[in-house]
């Protein structure tokens, strides 16, 4: 295959990056208006209009059929799964689903666009309106969506691979995307951060996109403008591209707001521009001015027949939709009595919530289940750099661990630090069996405990005397000594009671 024969456009003019320091009282005069456009790569197996694989990381130009390459005579055929996914995220965002759909062509020339046009839903987005609820310091807010539409991705131009030429990888060309567009309704970088965080959770939760921002499965562009508070007209907007992490979304918007206020404060005017974010120093730089607006010559794609989405189909997608995280959080709080924090932690990812729900089928101690998952399980996963899907500890094993601690047979620290790792290594073992095998079962039998208590009292006459004189704080020391003597098997509650009884008699 011939690589593109063109020299890269210089998109990085030499520019000194100024950090704008804007004083708070000046900042308070202004209000920022922010809208986000998010491209989510749909987690379909094949592309939007042909059967080529969309797997990430393949060697360049290996997932390229004649259709992807736009060879003469090729035609598109819509991927039904992509339509289903678009409806899915639309329903999750409370959008209205358009029944009559067609695609349009957006015409422009660029080497990574094989056909010379992008097939997109220009005039009839599949989802209209809707909102995403976010939590801010001021409470909950619904971020209104303008639309969600389907489109195909372009290939990837690689400008830094060859000194003289730009290389093009067409693997990504034709991949199914949805573009999720908000109204210009956000006012702070933090709101935008909360929005992208929540949206990322939603696309992952519904399974329509893996949400991987670094690999580009989820890409965010921010439209930012400022105006004086009280002003109703929108200011000149700047579009910031290349925001490949949630942090960068926040940092870029913060920088942009300060930059714009800085310009306006010294009497300057803001130029309508497309800018890019430089994560190395958290600044943005201009790529191009928007003045020469492209005429994309949109018209209905004649190679694809319009298609009708039936109510039945929408209903079937809705029926298959999982309980969404915010509803699930509420359920966990209201029906299971969990704290907001616990519920929120469990609903960070669907796999965690699913695991929790599998565990609570087997135990009634919901709080303990939440604590286990949010505590030792997550710590273990983090330490091992594993995802929950890779966890071999079965919900049954975890429920048993909970039962053992609830019954006082094993204390929590032994259960979490000794039993759990061993159970993970051998999923055929049961918690009780392993505890017995390793002699880790707590002793709460008074006779056996009394022996250890007597042994400790006899061993430390001085301390006993001090205790009796009133140094009651020594009790902890005695309990510790008994635990030591029992090699951790003594039930501390029973030991404390026994000690008090003996020492105070």
């Amino acid at each position, binding site marked *: *295959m*011939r690589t*593109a*024969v*063109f*020299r890269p*456009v210089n998109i990085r003019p030499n520019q000194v990056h100024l950090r704008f320091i804007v004083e708070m009282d000046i900042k308070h005069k202004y209000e920022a208006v922010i809208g986000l456009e998010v491209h989510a790569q749909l987690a379909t197996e094949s592309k939007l209009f042909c059967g080529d694989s969309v797997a990430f990381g393949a060697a360049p130009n290996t997932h390229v059929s*004649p259709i992807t*390459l*736009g*060879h*003469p*005579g*090729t*035609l*598109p*055929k*819509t991927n039904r799964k992509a339509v289903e996914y678009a409806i899915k995220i639309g329903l999750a965002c409370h959008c209205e689903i358009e029944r009559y759909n067609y695609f349009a*062509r957006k*015409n422009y*020339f660029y*080497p990574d666009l*094989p*056909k*010379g*046009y992008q097939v997109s839903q220009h005039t009839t987005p599949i989802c209209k309106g809707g909102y995403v609820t976010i939590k801010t310091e001021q409470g909950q807010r619904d971020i209104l969506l303008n639309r969600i539409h389907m489109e195909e991705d372009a290939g990837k131009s690689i400008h830094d691979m060859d000194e003289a030429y730009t290389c*093009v990888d067409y693997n990504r060309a034709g991949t199914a995307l949805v573009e999720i567009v908000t109204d210009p309704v956000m006012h702070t970088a933090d709101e935008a951060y909360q929005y992208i965080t929540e949206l990322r959770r939603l696309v992952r939760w519904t399974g329509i996109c893996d949400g991987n921002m670094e690999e580009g499965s989820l890409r965010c562009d921010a439209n930012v403008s400022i105006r004086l508070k009280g002003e109703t007209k929108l200011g000149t907007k700047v579009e910031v591209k290349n925001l490949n992490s949630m942090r960068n979304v926040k940092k870029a918007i913060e920088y942009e707001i300060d930059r714009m206020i800085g310009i306006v404060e010294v009497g300057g005017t803001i130029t309508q521009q497309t800018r890019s974010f430089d994560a190395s120093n958290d600044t943005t730089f201009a790529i191009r001015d928007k003045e020469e607006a492209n*005429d994309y*010559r*949109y*018209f209905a794609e*004649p*190679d*694809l*027949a319009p298609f009708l989405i039936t109510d039945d189909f929408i209903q079937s997608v809705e029926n298959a939709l999982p309980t969404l995280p915010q509803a699930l959080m509420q359920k966990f709080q209201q029906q299971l009595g969990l704290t907001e924090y616990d519920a929120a932690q469990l609903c960070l990812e669907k796999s965690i919530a699913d695991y929790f729900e599998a565990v609570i089928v087997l135990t009634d101690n919901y709080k303990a289940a939440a604590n286990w998952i949010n505590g030792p399980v997550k710590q273990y996963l983090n330490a091992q750099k594993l995802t929950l899907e890779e966890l071999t500890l079965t919900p049954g094993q975890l429920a048993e661990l909970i039962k053992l601690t609830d019954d006082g047979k094993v204390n929590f620290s032994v259960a979490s630090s000794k039993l759990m790792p061993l159970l993970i290594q051998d999923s055929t073992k049961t918690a009780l069996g392993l505890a017995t095998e390793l002699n880790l079962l707590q002793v709460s039998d008074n006779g056996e405990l009394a022996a250890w208590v007597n042994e400790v009292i006899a061993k430390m006459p001085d301390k006993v005397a001090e205790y009796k004189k009133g140094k009651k704080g020594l009790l902890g020391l005695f309990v510790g000594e008994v635990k030591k003597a029992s090699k951790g098997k003594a039930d501390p509650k029973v030991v404390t009671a026994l000690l008090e009884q003996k020492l105070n008699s």
Partner: protein
Amino acid sequence: MFRITSVKDYHQKLLNGQTTCVEAVSYYLQCIQQNIHLNAFLEVYADEALARAAELDAKQQAGLPLGKLHGVVIGLKDVISYKGHKLSASSKILEGFTAIYNATVTEKLLAEGAIIIGRQNCDEFAMGSSNENSAFGNVLNAKDTSRVPGGSSGGSAVSVQAGLCMVSLGSDTGGSVRQPADFCGIVGLKPTYGRVSRYGLIAYASSFDQVGVFANSVEDAALVLEVIAGSDDFDSTALTTPVPQYTQHLDDNGKKYKIAYFKEALEHPGLDPEISTAIKNFFTTLKSQGHTVEQVDFELLDYIVPAYYVLTTAEASSNLSRFDGIKYGYATKKPVGDLTDYYKKTRSEGFGKEVKRRILLGTFVLSAGYFDAYFTKAQQVRTILTERTDAIFKQYDAIISPTVPSPAFKFGEKSNDPTEMFLADIYTVFANLVGIPGISLPLFTNNSGMNFGIQVMSAKENEEILFKLSQRLTKAL
């Protein structure tokens, strides 16, 4: 001496042992060689065709089941993809390009035992009515080499006219099969839009394009359509309705037809009086045979050509964007400044004049500020035309019109006046605008010995009645 009257006759002779596929291919290769001056073929697959013929003969010898097009020697217009073979749309911009997949029609032909003998010359990107727009020279009309063969599928028409193959596949966006068939005195069929998959047909105007058939008889055309028609996973605009066995239903059992014609069409000032008279006389004959022939008012006739050229050029301007010198095909050899300069030079050098004219026209009508005045308006015309046509077919079996306003003209006669050239498409573009099937039947000869005929059109997806009536009409004289 190899001599056949139809595919059916050929198959009979093969079965009787009177001929072989190898003999057929050898014969056609010889004919092509003798008529090389007609410039009908851009490339002939001589060795390959002979080898395939030998395989097919062996298959027959072995008593294996034979395909519907067993041994049928076919030419493909150079806009139909044939894996491993060059494909250029008669354009310089596809210089050096080799197809890496088969068009659906190619697959279907091969599956039924056809032998593809070569790639046929045409107007560049199927744009033209005289075959004067090929980057590889004019195709000559075999009957009078000073005259054009028609276009855009000129090479495919002349191949059948001059007996260089049994049938050809062409493409018809606004008459590119029916018009050259008319000029060459053969049968030319454009099926219903979507009846034949477009996958692998280089697009001119996606919502108009349709693969068509050139043949010596209605029956041969029906047989080929039977093979190439049908739904296709690779073309979502292809019709999903089952394909009738057209050749089994060619006999109309003496049916009396209800035929409509447009008054405005027969009284059009641009129509050659000899053609007008011939058709009027023909109508009289049909009436005397008990058929109904009625005049229908069609005041929309003058909107047809403008609407057609607005919509087709719009689609073409976008369809031809992929030829940018980046991925395949021609790339400028001149030094270039930047990317835009590279595109400009490559496309200016690679495309011919007519193609550039249509790309510019299409780009213009899609531009912001002009879109509604041209594109939207033309779409509205298309909708009205479709409604009117549907209404007509509620009352009539067919519409008959001239195929072309004049017989084959001389080279250079119209090539300097694109508008006059466009207007010559007045009778054929109608079927593409409304998506109905049409067939050109070579019924007459004019006083200078050139052929001309009539065009028969039927309702969408009703090729069956189109073939029956066509059979009847060819026998009516």
